């Protein structure tokens, strides 16, 4: 039984400019110990999806219009009471965020922030909790942990703060870690350190990880499976190697072609024409069609559901589903 099963999640925001359908029918499942990457640009809905699962979407102006998210086969995260959700949040499902500056409470010592999840969920008494907190801090690579644990967040650098946040997330040994662009705000060499750390922790604890990013490269080295989101929907999902080697959606293919590292020098970079759609307007047909070099009339008319086109490989492209399009490698 999957650890997490999300079915037709729809989250919108009711703003004065209209209703923004940030997440527009997202379904996926996650097995224990699996790493899933969710890739997309800003406005794709990748962050809102996970915030919805964790109950972090402010309602109003947000609203979870429909959908279920079964955790461990027993609890629907979207429909359960605040009490039930609080037993799971922070204990069995943990989340780390992009900005290490604002994710830690500047008025509390690191020690107090680290033991808080343990005490709140009654997993240990204070002295045991302190011991585990120090161990966790050492595990994430903070030198001289026993002393530094008494510091305040502002006494740490950005990379260190991110490590502290990871320690806070892992201290209860959760079943699932959701990482929302955890390395985007960090320097490239520090990014490498943090990714290494998350990978190691994942292996040691056997956790499942959902890794949200806009960077295909980062996701490629880390995840078992990847889903690509565009305009609030999943447009392609597959095992990582297959997603890269055999793209089955024009957006995925275009994203890969845009990566500068893969392009010959001197020539102009491949660009995706146009801009992401205005999410406050209803979309007719495929949301990517206006920018797609393969779009035909039918693409603009019919809404295309996400369907399996090969074993383990799903795509929301009409022409791929009808076997009209296929590529091997993005360089084609």
């Amino acid at each position, binding site marked *: 039984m999957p650890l997490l099963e999300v079915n037709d999640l729809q989250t919108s925001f009711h703003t004065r400019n209209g209703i923004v359908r940030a997440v527009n029918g997202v379904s996926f499942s996650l097995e224990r110990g699996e790493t899933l990457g969710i890739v997309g*640009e*800003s406005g794709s809905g990748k962050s809102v999806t996970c915030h919805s699962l964790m109950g972090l979407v402010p309602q109003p102006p947000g609203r979870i219009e429909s959908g279920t998210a079964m955790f461990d086969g027993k609890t629907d995260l979207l429909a359960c009471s605040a009490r039930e959700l609080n037993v799971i949040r922070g204990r069995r499902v943990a989340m780390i965020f992009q900005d290490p500056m604002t994710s830690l409470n500047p008025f509390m010592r690191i020690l107090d922030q680290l033991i808080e999840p343990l005490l709140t969920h009654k997993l240990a008494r204070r002295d045991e909790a302190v011991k585990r907190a120090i161990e966790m801090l050492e595990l994430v690579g903070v030198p001289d942990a026993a002393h530094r644990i008494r510091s305040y967040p502002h006494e740490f*650098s950005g*990379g*260190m703060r991110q490590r502290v946040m990871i320690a806070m997330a892992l201290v209860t040994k959760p079943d699932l870690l959701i990482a929302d662009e955890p390395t985007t705000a960090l*320097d*490239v*060499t*520090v*990014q*490498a*350190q943090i990714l*290494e750390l998350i990978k190691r922790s994942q292996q040691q604890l056997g956790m499942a990880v959902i890794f949200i990013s*806009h*960077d*295909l*490269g*980062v996701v*490629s*080295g880390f995840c078992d499976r990847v889903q690509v989101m565009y305009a609030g929907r999943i447009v392609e999902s597959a095992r*990582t*190697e297959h997603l*890269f080697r055999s793209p089955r959606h024009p957006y995925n293919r*275009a*994203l*890969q072609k*845009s*990566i*500068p*590292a*893969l*392009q010959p*020098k001197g020539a*102009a*970079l*491949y*660009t*995706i024409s146009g*801009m*992401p759609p205005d999410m406050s307007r209803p979309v007719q047909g495929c949301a990517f069609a206006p920018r797609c070099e393969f779009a035909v009339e039918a693409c603009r008319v019919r809404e295309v559901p996400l369907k399996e086109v090969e074993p383990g490989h799903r795509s929301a492209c009409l022409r791929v589903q009808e076997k009209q399009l296929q590529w091997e490698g993005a360089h084609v």
Partner: protein
Amino acid sequence: MSEPFLELKEVRTHFPVEHGILFRHRVGTVRAVDGVSLRLQRGEVLGLVGESGCGKSTLGRTILQLLPPTEGAVILAGKNLAELRGGALREARADFQMVFQDPYASLNPRMTVFDTLAEAIGAHKQVPSAEMPARVAALMEKVGLSRRFVKKYPHEFSGGQRQRIAIARALAVEPKLIVADEPVSALDVSIQAQIINLLAGLSREMRLTLIFISHDLSVVKHISDRIAVMYLGKIVESGPAAGVFEKPLHPYTKALISAVAIPDPEREKKRQRIILSGDPPSPLRPPSGCAFHPRCPDANADCSRVTPPLEEFQTGREVACLRAREIS
């Protein structure tokens, strides 16, 4: 060897750290740029890379005299910009311009595109007002913006479009040098390529000398002729772009290149990464000797005592490492 178009000689930009309310006294110095020398030919594209705190943004602003250099010379087409003051400096600004990182903050929100561009066009020249609309339209066309939007305000555009307006503004004074400080970092990936293409195309077409500052190595590799890598206020390696990437000489450059993820799952999962230990250093308390030695996998005892100078390793390639020859 022709005279360089832009030459920096031992440029230093230091910021004093002061304490005290009325009578301030100096307690330390931030050596943001600490002895940078380089040369650029006319029409070359230099990629300046480094992580936060390395001083690349400060260097960019120092070259443009938006920050006064504490020491050193910034020589553009034979004139030392650091010696110019007042009216002379203002006039000289027509030769060098900047494109900023944040497309939301770099345009005056209360001015239309027309106002912004007209102001720039008229900054150093007298242009009769009857001619202005045509000139503004021509500029907009050059950066790929429809002239239909000329009366619109910045907040009505997307990030990519705003960046185009900012580039148009920089081009309006007909500069010879443009410093682009992380011009695409705040943009979505699919828009970044559009702006990079624009900058590359324009610089070729107009024979502009372009300094492209970024922390994103893959972007820089694509657009640059030459690359300079900065660490804690100094250049640690420089050379032709392809050469530096294929055969990096400095351990920091190697780590930087290694940190860039390759979007090929098989290679990415298997490759050996260089993971640096520790954090980037603080410019307030730089390490002794070579600033990189605490994190360097190849450091030896000398490295903590001696500050390596930037020296020529082979033609066109410079590196600041005591052990460069041994490790390569």
